[in-house]
């Protein structure tokens, strides 16, 4: 029963026109990046962070793409899915239908969280795969050069990419869980998206003020830059672990609030 409900949820999300458009947009990112670096590759590279080592290093494109998208694009997509999941269903009156079927409210949240996770993983993986293809096609590759100047074999590089996919997906799901909590309080999906994106942007702005450094450890966005450590060699897991724990706290809070709201909500 649960598997068929989960399957139905994912099929339903995949059938949405906006999901298709969103995925299409996400896939464009690594292609544009690869193309951009390729056309600019006559100059001597340079630039901060990963951008500096992209030249001739196509395997880094998926990681660079995901790292870049994590700041805005992926939270946006997660918030859209979370918004449609509860607020959108309430708006169309379909949430009532599900509850009367009946689907218990806890299970409903589980189904929604699963849909969000499955689709996030799918979107992130899709971006990474397209990134590998576009990156190697435009920029070529012999393994993967790390930020530490070492060169990994293709297999080792793929392991790094898979690790990064999982880390980024987890961040995305945590943001989505908080968005689900917002989603459970309203019938307007746009409110959910606006609230989520505003929060992410405000967090990033707050993160720029050194005078607010007491606040920074609480902001989920603080954990984003640390994920780049996947591209160092050997990988220092300290920051990666901290970022993941931070996101895990958001996941717990978001899921808990959404559950509390759903259980007590009148529909």
């Amino acid at each position: 029963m649960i598997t068929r409900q989960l399957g139905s949820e994912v099929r339903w999300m995949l059938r949405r026109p906006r999901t298709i458009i969103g995925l299409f947009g996400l896939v464009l990112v690594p292609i544009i990046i690869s193309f951009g670096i390729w056309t600019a590759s006559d100059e001597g590279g340079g630039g901060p962070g990963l951008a500096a080592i992209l030249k001739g290093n196509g395997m880094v494109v998926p990681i660079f793409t995901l790292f870049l998208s994590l700041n805005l694009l992926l939270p946006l997509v997660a918030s859209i899915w979370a918004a449609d999941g509860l607020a959108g269903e309430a708006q169309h009156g379909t949430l009532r239908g599900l509850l009367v079927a009946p689907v218990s409210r806890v299970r409903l949240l589980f189904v929604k969280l699963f849909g969000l996770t499955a689709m996030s993983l799918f979107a992130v993986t899709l971006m990474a795969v397209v990134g590998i293809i576009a990156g190697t096609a435009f920029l070529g590759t012999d393994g993967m050069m790390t930020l530490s100047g070492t060169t990994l074999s293709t297999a080792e590089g793929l392991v790094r990419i898979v690790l990064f996919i999982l880390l980024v997906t987890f961040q995305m799901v945590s943001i989505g869980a908080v968005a689900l909590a917002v989603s459970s309080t309203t019938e307007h999906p746009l409110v959910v998206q606006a609230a989520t994106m505003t929060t992410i942007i405000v967090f990033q702005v707050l993160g720029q003020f050194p005078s607010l450094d007491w606040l920074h450890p609480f902001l989920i966005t603080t954990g984003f830059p640390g994920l780049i450590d996947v591209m160092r060699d050997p990988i220092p897991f300290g920051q990666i672990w901290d970022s993941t724990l931070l996101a895990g706290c958001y996941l717990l809070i978001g899921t808990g609030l959404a559950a509390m709201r759903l259980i007590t909500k009148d529909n």
Partner: protein
Amino acid sequence: MTTSTSAPVTAPTTHAVAARTKGLRKEYGSTVAVDRVDLELPEGAVLGMLGPNGSGKTTTIRMLLGLVRPTQGEIELLGQRLPDGVEQALPHVGALVEGPGFHPFLSGRENLIRCAAFEPLLPKKQIKQAVEDALERVGLAQAAHRRYRGYSLGMKQRLGLAGALLVPRKLVVLDEPTNGLDPAGTREIRKIIAELHEQGSTVLVSSHLLSEVEATCTHVAVLHRGTVVAQGELTELLQAGGSALQVITPDVETALGALRQAKISARPLGEGLRVELAGTSAPQVIETLVKAGVGVYEATRWKTGLEELFARLTEAEEAERGMSSVDTLDGGRR
């Protein structure tokens, strides 16, 4: 129970009930949406729930389906106490509440398949067949491949009905099922309700269209201002409430005075009077009038329909509150 006429019909029924509520109350903030609702839905009955908009019909239905948590009171649904038993009861309940709810970007069929995936009583292998059957039943088979977005109001309503009928149900709850339907559609809904009744399902139909209820229901519950003002078998209710005499006379004032003296309730209506026959009889009324020297041109036994009953029930309430009776009638029509 709040009016004298409902007294004989609220006697507790001893036979099995599909649903029962006791002292149901729901507050939203400081407003009371529903109060002291004691509803009884006998097994196999078709209960018409009547009431003007805002009378608490939908809130009551939503509480019955476990969508809304009552502030006070008890609910029993198909032998299960709510809210604990809601998951045992609801698989046997088909519902169309507050209009059909579907995803605009999916076709009618895809929408039903999604609903079916969440039906506990429907084995996976039977989903396809159940969906086709339901579409056929509501006459949507031809339009099933089209997107819900493009459906007319009537088609949407039918799809909603199909969703409620995916699985054989013990109880079907239909909230305003004929909304947006043309006369032919309305007839089809009536046919479906009759079929369900024949198959032994219990049906709860809420509506503000009295004729519809009169045509399809075996039982009636009238809600007004958040509470049940009358309920029982349709025939009993009509009998109990259906006694009035219309008297055409030029001498309305004198007639009213005479009747008042005789403690018979009456009020002016058109060219004459409308006389209530509660506690009195037609010959007695005529006698009183004639004795008072009032010329009676014509006296007609009022043909009581549900509309009349409904108007009187809700009006009586208004009169008690010292408000105009016209509002209620208007409210009852939409």
